[in-house]
């Protein structure tokens, strides 16, 4: 069961060859018995899941068609609010906080008959690229448990790679779905900004965050994206008019124009990553695509611009944690200003505090024009550059990360190095574009390497078709840590 795709699982459930509760028991039981081997689960919501499974099963038994993913267990990154189930953001600051409402995606999952089995580990408040900054310790990479799973959605990627959940949701602010997918050898989609409601996803950087699916292959991810996408009256930045519907049309990629940013492959990229990503481009070319090279403009500005904007928004979004209304309050605080100062000093971890400081600085009077306003201007230029590129290309193929998964602790004290690891992913968020990530090979240590296809806004269908053609021609996505699937 653990190696089945989500769509295979759901057809077994639909044909009543497998009970929804059986699936829940299998996945939650495994997580419990094996003692959370990759430190992926922060909360296992077994009781809740079994209750939901019962209700969904009754509808299936009554012959009702709910959705293509009905009955399938799903686990969520722990910054997605679940009513009545702790939502920790992997932060001490969320100590004791239980949301009184659910994220819109949670409601959409439940309407589709999917069953939430737990909440997954991550970087604290999604700030980090290695899932090491959270209050619950690092997520371990199932391919090599001495290595990081990537971040910030490390728990979501590792849970799929480790066969602990058939599907998960992550969030992507600057690469937080894509980089862990690459590190863990799984497939994921960072949707167009505005395709999926952000309501209930605890905000890191509001103008960049998107929730997206992670699974074993692109078809599972596409099915999950269909479920979670669509308009939401509670999020005015969710401007898609109806949920995605994806077909299954293409046999090949004849005539599809794919751009390859030459300068992404120049300096700073590991040889094995370069080799595997280049090979992926060749594979797509063999499937009929027309590959054209170009130099990506403004590359040096992407990481600084991203961190200025993301930290500015984060400093504001996280200001609501004042120790008064919910979450952590310092026991030592006696006055109002101590409640603020001590609760925030003790409740937030180092990386989060670093970003709050940086964000407060770039927004403060006298620096706003020099940093934040400049960053917004360059962001607009990056969007324009992408617009121009999509006149020439249907999509852009790029590496996800300059490296494969590194050792736990290796980069944690070097934030600049960590931030530069986001070089290939952040511009996608700055421009609000969709990207699909999928495995395209292994490095000499046997660690997975991923590749991303970036498309124009709301061109998810094209990206999914290309990824599907690729996955029909290759078997990297079927490999599992410790051996082949099936």
């Amino acid at each position, binding site marked *: 069961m653990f190696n089945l795709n989500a769509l295979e699982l759901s057809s077994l459930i639909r044909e009543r060859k497998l009970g929804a509760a059986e699936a829940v028991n299998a996945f939650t039981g495994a997580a419990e018995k094996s003692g959370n081997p990759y430190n992926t689960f922060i909360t296992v919501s077994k009781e809740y899941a079994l209750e939901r499974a019962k209700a969904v099963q009754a509808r299936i038994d009554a012959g009702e068609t709910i959705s293509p993913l009905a009955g399938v267990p799903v686990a969520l990154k722990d910054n997605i609010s679940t009513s009545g189930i702790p939502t920790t953001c992997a932060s001490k600051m969320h100590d004791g906080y239980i949301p009184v409402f659910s994220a819109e995606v949670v409601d959409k999952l439940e309407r589709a008959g999917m069953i939430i089995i737990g909440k997954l580990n991550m970087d604290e408040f999604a700030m980090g690229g290695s899932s090491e900054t959270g209050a619950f310790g690092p997520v371990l990479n199932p391919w090599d448990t001495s290595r990081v799973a990537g971040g910030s959605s490390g728990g979501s990627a590792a849970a799929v790679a480790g066969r602990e959940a058939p599907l998960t949701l992550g969030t992507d602010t600057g690469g937080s779905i894509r980089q862990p997918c690459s590190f863990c050898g799984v497939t994921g989609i960072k949707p167009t900004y505005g395709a999926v409601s952000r309501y*209930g996803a605890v*905000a890191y950087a509001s103008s960049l965050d998107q929730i997206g699916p992670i699974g074993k292959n692109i078809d599972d991810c596409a099915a999950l994206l269909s479920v979670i996408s669509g308009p939401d009256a*509670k999020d005015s930045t969710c401007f898609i008019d109806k949920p995605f519907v994806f077909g299954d049309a293409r046999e090949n990629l004849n005539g599809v124009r794919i751009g390859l940013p030459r300068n992404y492959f120049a300096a700073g990229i590991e040889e094995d990553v370069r080799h595997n990503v280049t090979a992926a481009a060749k594979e797509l070319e063999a499937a009929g695509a027309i590959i054209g090279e170009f130099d990506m403009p403004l590359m040096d500005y992407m990481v600084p611009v991203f961190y200025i904007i993301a930290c500015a928004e984060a400093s504001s979004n996280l200001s609501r944690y004042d120790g008064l209304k919910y979450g952590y309050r310092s026991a030592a605080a006696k006055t109002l200003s101590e409640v603020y100062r001590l609760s925030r000093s003790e409740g937030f971890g180092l990386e989060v505090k670093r970003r709050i400081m940086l964000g407060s600085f770039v*927004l*403060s009077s006298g620096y706003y024009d020099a940093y*934040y306003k400049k960053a917004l201007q360059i962001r607009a230029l990056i969007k324009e550059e992408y617009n121009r590129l999509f006149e020439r290309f249907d999509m852009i193929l790029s590496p996800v990360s300059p490296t494969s998964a590194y050792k736990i602790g290796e980069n944690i004290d070097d934030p600049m190095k960590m931030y530069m690891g986001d070089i290939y992913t952040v511009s996608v968020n700055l421009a609000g574009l969709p990207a699909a990530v999928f495995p395209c090979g292994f490095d000499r240590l046997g660690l997975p390497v991923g590749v991303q296809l970036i498309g124009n806004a709301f061109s998810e269908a094209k990206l999914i078709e290309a990824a599907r053609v690729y996955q029909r021609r290759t078997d990297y996505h079927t490999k599992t840590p410790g051996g082949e699937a099936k």
Partner: protein
Amino acid sequence: MRWETVIGLEVHTELSTESKIFCGCTTAFGGEPNTHVCPVCAGMPGTLPILNRAVVERALRAGLALNCKITQNCKFDRKSYFYPDLPKAYQVSQLYAPICRGGHMEIEVNGEKKIIGIRQIHMEEDAGKLVHDPKSGGTLMDYNRGGIPLLEIVSQPDFRSGAEVIAYLEKLRETLLYLGVSDCKMQEGSLRADVNLSVRPIGGEMGVRTEMKNLNSFKAIGRAIEYESARQIEILENGGYVIQETRRWDDDAGESYGMRSKENAQDYRYFPEPDLLPIEISDEWLDSVRESLPELAHRKRERYMRDYGLSGHEVSVLTGHKNISDLFEDISKQSRNPLESARLVTGEIMRLLNVTNTLPEELSPDGRKLAVLVELLSARKINRNAYKEAVEAVFTDNAEPEAYIAQKGLMMLSDDNAVSEAAGAVLADNPDAAADYRAGKEKAFGFLMGQTMRKLGKAGDPDTVKKILKEMLDNQEGA
């Protein structure tokens, strides 16, 4: 040295929308603490604001009425500061692209007209309220008010006296009421003004200003301006200098004290609110708001005088509150008798509001019913006493006028026989008075008239009584 006071105002007014600016919670005043609150206005993690279109609509109305230029692509910004009444620790407001800019309003003080510039109007959310808990000695938070929509109307520093400030506030209040933008109840905090004040030698360089907060009535504003102006002049005359600071007015003590100076000034770290898209105000939307603007009080005053020939006093009573002028126009239109309608509203209706302790905002009588009474009076179907009684019945019990008049027998007797009978009886009972009248004492006629009217009750038509009584007296004389 002769000093001049320079004042600018920041007026906050709560908008009279049904729901809050970014969520569906009610804006009703009062309520048990924290009952008009949801995850959005409580600022819980992961929640997002949704802009209430009615707030924009009202801001547009205010801006157009105050002759502002409308920013058709306006945006919200976040203003950050830590305080327990602000659940997100930032207030969603407008700094970089406020909805209105560059307007003005004319005021009149002691017969002199003056134009006051309006720098900008912006939309924002209100904060919650801190409540002292006498039981624990601690402070509790009530977020019912958090997220109620506010307009901040910022004037130019064009005022030179407290009287100008009060005239401006009174006219602004009247305007906002007429526009249906706000109910402007100062006692409920739905109209608040902060005073920015500096002094300078007449015609000299602008001085250092202070900002005065916690001004809860027009009277307090007048007193605070007087106090602050005197305080600053005294400092300067003694060779000192005024510190730029925020001061809090204590109306009981009649003085203010400094809250924070510029050195400790907050850095609000404004930046564009990423959770809301820019607001596109189309020409069509703007035109439809412009067309729906009601006639404002000062225009009504001009029109009432010109078209109806009403007196200055009547006109100012009629336009004192929008509900009053609405009622007047309603009755006037339905009865086609503006003079009698004005007399009714400025007379009986005002008297009834007074004796029943009713505020104009609670005024709710049915204009149609009152118009029926005005028509009956002018058509001489009821007399003035009956009319007053019926007006009161409509005002207090919402009575049906025709039914009430029928039931109480107030319709005037057009039957001459009944009047003759009554008059005959009065003359028979009062032969002396009749004799006096014939002897030329006009006063005696009044007495006989009164006696006859009393006999007929409220159904008596004074004109008919007068005519018949006179006939009878003259006839008897002739007989």
